[in-house]
């Protein structure tokens, strides 16, 4: 290996360390005994997990966030799949409008949407309601679901659906019995992304939260701002665990989808 390549490799490793170091540092602190954050951690305890699971405020916030994330995942999967299917079956000019409206929430900064919804929800009484959060998070998560479902729909052979309809199936039955099963893994994987996006979403949570009904990210924000106890690393361990699990699940689902469409007759 020549010196230039060695230098380049060293640089890449340095960047990788930069990427991973903060996570490597914070996770072990979840098991540290003192009530402030030190590295290396001192002692060993599961106490901070007990603190988290035993505290009704943290538990209430977690339940609130879980409920919002679940409903967001369901809403975006259903609404997103319906719209994407229409788009892929010739939406024409409406499709152009759809794509514009799909991209807009990615382009507009979250702080802008958060402030807009803060005022709007104050006027309509939707502040710190589950419904309000689900609407807001669905707007943010929708593009991820649509792109994931569109990827699957574009690789499913449309003649399969044609064949079903020629044999007398209605459009709805053809979709339900032929196309939907083929794209279902991607629909689910899009829903999983939406779940994680909603569950982790800090900015809109920050502005929409009331005094009593706080989401988990909002509770975490307050804790980091005020006292920064090892309860945050403990939550970090749990959240990272969930993320890794969901990431693997989504990858497996996509893999299943890919091998299924690949083994279709005209493969």
């Amino acid at each position: 290996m020549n010196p230039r390549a060695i230098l380049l490799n060293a640089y890449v490793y340095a960047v990788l360390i930069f990427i991973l170091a903060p996570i490597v540092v914070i996770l072990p602190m979840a098991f540290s005994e003192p009530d402030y954050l030190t590295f290396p951690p001192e002692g060993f305890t599961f106490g901070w997990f007990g603190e988290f699971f035993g505290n009704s405020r943290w538990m209430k916030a977690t339940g609130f966030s879980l409920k919002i994330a679940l409903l967001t995942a369901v809403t975006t999967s259903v609404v997103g799949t319906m719209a994407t299917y229409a788009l892929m079956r010739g939406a024409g000019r409406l499709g152009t409008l759809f794509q514009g409206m799909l991209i807009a929430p990615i382009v507009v900064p979250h702080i802008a949407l958060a402030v807009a919804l803060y005022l709007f929800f104050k006027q309509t009484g939707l502040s710190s309601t589950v419904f309000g959060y689900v609407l807001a998070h669905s707007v943010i998560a929708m593009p991820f679901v649509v792109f994931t479902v569109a990827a699957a729909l574009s690789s499913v052979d449309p003649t399969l659906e044609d064949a079903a309809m020629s044999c007398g199936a209605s459009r709805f039955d053809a979709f339900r019995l032929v196309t939907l099963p083929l794209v279902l893994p991607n629909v689910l994987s899009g829903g999983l992304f939406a779940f994680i996006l909603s569950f982790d979403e800090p900015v809109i949570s920050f502005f929409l939260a009331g005094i009593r009904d706080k989401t988990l990210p909002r509770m975490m924000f307050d804790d980091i701002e005020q006292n920064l106890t090892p309860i945050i690393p403990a939550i970090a361990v749990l959240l990272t665990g969930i993320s890794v699990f969901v990431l693997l699940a989504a990858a497996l689902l996509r893999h299943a989808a890919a091998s299924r469409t690949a083994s279709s007759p005209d493969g």
Partner: protein
Amino acid sequence: MTRPGFFQPNGRQLSSAGILLLMAPFFMLIGFAFLYPLLSLLSLSVTEPEPGLSNYVRILDNPLYFKVLLRTLWIAVLVSVLALLMAFPVAMAMVSSSGPMAVFITAFVLLPFWSSVLVRTAAWAVLLQRNGIVNDLLQVVGITSEPIRLLYTQGAVVVAMTHVLLPFMVLPIYGALRNIPSDYDRAAAICGAGPLRRFAEVTVPLALPGVLGGVILVFLTALGYFITPALLGSPKEMMIATLISQQLREFLDWPFAAALVGVLTLFVTAITLVFSKVFRFDRMLGGQL
């Protein structure tokens, strides 16, 4: 089988009524929870306290607020450049390595991408605190003799934001690099081009759309970033998002906060429209796993 592009209609066409029916829930959601709130916020910025552009004039007239705009731009540029310098070699390593090493690097890059922004920001707060590791290291190496203030500074915001936004730079560049056939590099080598020349004249030009996409994505996200400056930055050195939050929540000056949102949103939208060709959202969001 060639894979058709995203959003390429296929199959038997639906009737207009069917399409309208299927898309209606989507448009209702976006209309109710995105378009209407945003437009009424923008209209608030030009109607209160009196009709006209007085709120916008105030942003530009007051040196304090104007400084926030400049600082926000500067931090966003700095974060984009730093992220690019870090992301490009990593993306190259992802493309050129194979087997377990490729999985390893990809996992490194993707894990933070799907782990909470708050967790990563908290990690930086821990690293940079007064008795934190970075201060310890600085003293061991001999750069400083006693702990210095790292947290609640502009430097902390830049470092942490670069870290948080890095995956958004790596993924588009990786996507562009992966699509370059390896024959090109070999052909250039056979024709006698050295590694540096091959990098400058083959790899970089072909990767340019991905680089541009990543830079714009990181730049635009950094402009409106809230969490990291709010938790790690100094209240004396605000960015536009923290200023918006202060105006809205502490001073209850809704029209002025709305005008700040207007400036941010119009600026971001304008840049996006200018660069709309290089923005391949489908590639950035769809094919990243």
